């Protein structure tokens, strides 16, 4: 699928893994950390306009609402650039959400599109059948100037998940299982195709959780081929015409991994790496001080529903700080209307406006020396959420919610 998309956008009949191609991009994304660098580079072109103000998306989501003066000045760089160049998709605080939840929700992603983002989790959009990959700020600057990017065509690894999805298992558990199996560089420079009966039944939110973490295995992109779930999701969001691209029947995969998930336990990544993965039973009893439910991995409505279902009517453990961060304004509102926020607040959780916040140790929940957190985010590198001697465990929303109540890492069944 990736080869076909890249060939089409490079104006070629066919491309092969390893080929270097120049492609037209349908969308280029930047945030309040990466776009200021890109804007500085863009200025070096001396151009008075961007290649297409409708194909650039700027989202101040990392250190916003502005965490300090320096962050405020960075956000201002973004805002001024957006105004000057009449960037159509600039999302100010109040309309902003975490970029990788926001763009699909706003109908900016469609099957067959090529999307680059100066953010590594841009690979999320492969859940909708697009070729989407994270790049750097210079790439973004060039894309803003001429609407092109260079790529080395990746080989594809196929990941197949079969069996009945057990209770409490979601996309997060499948992707952690996968990264645990192949390691943080197991898919380096590769495209990751997710398929199998379990993926067919997986919701769009669950699929986005999986493609989101392709980068944690070193992947260039992750994707699910478009199906009815995709088209249902796109309905009413994407107005522009598109034609879905599928893998050919004779496609060559570099490798195939198969998983039977029938008896899968919820998965936990131990610090300091997302491939340090164990079933929850082996993490049971680890004491934590903070739980974060949010981020571009697991801050979507389905995640909040799962967490609220576990938490409703209970109280967060007195030693625990539970932070719940809906990923976008629309998700926030939906959670409000569905009574999820009430369940969180009555349980004594702190609920925040959309932001990346603690996920990258930016603000809104930084860890002190020696503290441990359990988070539904995607990275648990040393110091990711605060002090270099703090630690982060990763899980899905069900385990996170249950652990917030228990005060230590537990299986969701234990708090019911």
């Amino acid at each position, binding site marked *: 699928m990736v080869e076909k998309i890249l060939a089409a956008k490079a104006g070629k009949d066919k491309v092969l893994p390893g080929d*270097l191609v120049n492609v037209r991009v349908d969308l280029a994304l930047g945030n309040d*950390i*990466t776009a*200021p*660098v890109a804007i*500085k*580079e863009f200025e*070096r*072109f001396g151009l008075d306009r961007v290649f297409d103000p409708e194909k650039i998306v700027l989202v101040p989501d*990392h*250190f916003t609402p502005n965490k*300090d003066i*320096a*962050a405020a*000045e*960075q956000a201002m760089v973004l805002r001024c650039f957006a105004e000057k160049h009449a960037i159509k998709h600039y999302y100010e605080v109040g309309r902003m959400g975490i970029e990788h939840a926001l763009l699909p929700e706003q109908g900016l992603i469609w099957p067959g599109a090529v999307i680059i*983002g*100066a*953010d*590594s989790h*841009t690979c999320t959009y492969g859940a909708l059948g697009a070729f989407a990959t*994270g*790049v*750097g*700020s*210079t*790439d973004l*600057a*060039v894309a803003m*100037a*001429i609407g092109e990017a*260079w790529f080395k065509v990746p080989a594809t690894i196929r990941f197949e998940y079969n069996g009945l999805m057990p209770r409490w298992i979601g996309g997060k558990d499948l992707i952690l299982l996968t990264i645990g199996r192949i390691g*943080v*560089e197991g898919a*380096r*420079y590769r495209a990751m195709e997710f398929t199998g009966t379990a993926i067919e039944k997986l919701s769009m939110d669950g699929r986005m959780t999986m493609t989101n973490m392709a*980068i944690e295995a*070193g992947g*260039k992109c992750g994707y699910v081929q478009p199906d009815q779930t995709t088209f249902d999701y796109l309905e009413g969001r994407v107005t522009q015409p598109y034609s879905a691209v599928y893998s050919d029947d004779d496609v060559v995969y570099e490798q195939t991994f198969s998983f039977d998930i029938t008896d899968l336990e919820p998965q936990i990544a131990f610090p300091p*790496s997302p491939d340090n993965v164990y079933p929850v039973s082996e993490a049971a009893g680890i004491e934590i001080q903070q739980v974060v439910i949010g981020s571009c991995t697991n801050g979507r409505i389905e995640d909040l529903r799962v967490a609220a279902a576990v938490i409703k009517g209970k109280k967060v453990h007195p030693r625990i700080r539970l932070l719940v961060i809906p990923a976008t304004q629309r998700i926030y509102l939906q959670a409000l209307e569905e009574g999820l926020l009430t369940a969180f607040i009555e349980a004594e959780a702190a609920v925040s406006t959309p932001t990346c916040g603690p996920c*990258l*140790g*930016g603000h809104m929940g930084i860890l002190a020396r020696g503290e441990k957190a359990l988070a539904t985010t995607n*990275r648990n*590198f*040393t*110091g*990711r959420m605060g002090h*270099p001697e703090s630690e982060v465990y990763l899980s899905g929303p069900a385990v996170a919610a249950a652990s917030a109540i228990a005060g230590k890492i537990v299986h969701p069944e234990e708090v019911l």
Partner: protein
Amino acid sequence: MLEGRVWVFGDNIDTDAIIPACYLSTVEPRELAQHLMEGIKPDFPGVVQCGDILIAGSNFGCGSSREHAPLSIKGAGISCVIARSFARIFYRNSINIGLPILECPDDLSTLTSGVDRLQVNLDQGLITHIQTGCVYQAAPFPPFMQEIINCGGLVEYIKARLNSEAP
């Protein structure tokens, strides 16, 4: 031809270790360089000198797409990064900003930080250990990437292309 002292790091060095997120509210390479590697070697900014060479194991620069990572390395005056392999976004970012990086399959992890010196021939990918005379061969760049580096980065490369296309 480059020459400098080496600093040796391990496998899977992530961008949060290279430059922690809390310092990302600046884009100035020199300011960033003051926190280079703070996550794993807090005294590094104090000891690193202009021209030094950074050595790493596999998957160097994994994690976020922050171009601040290669920028902080460049800002510290590091002349070249040699690793067994690089994470892909770090790899393209380095090329795009004109920071020379080499993938070398040989094990350089036994070199002594701050003591051993290497001489690097970027065009041929040849690495020579000054004290012992040992020679290592790294993969040279594909011509397209070599051209970007020769231009001083992607922006200059594209500018040159736009100029040549202009009527």
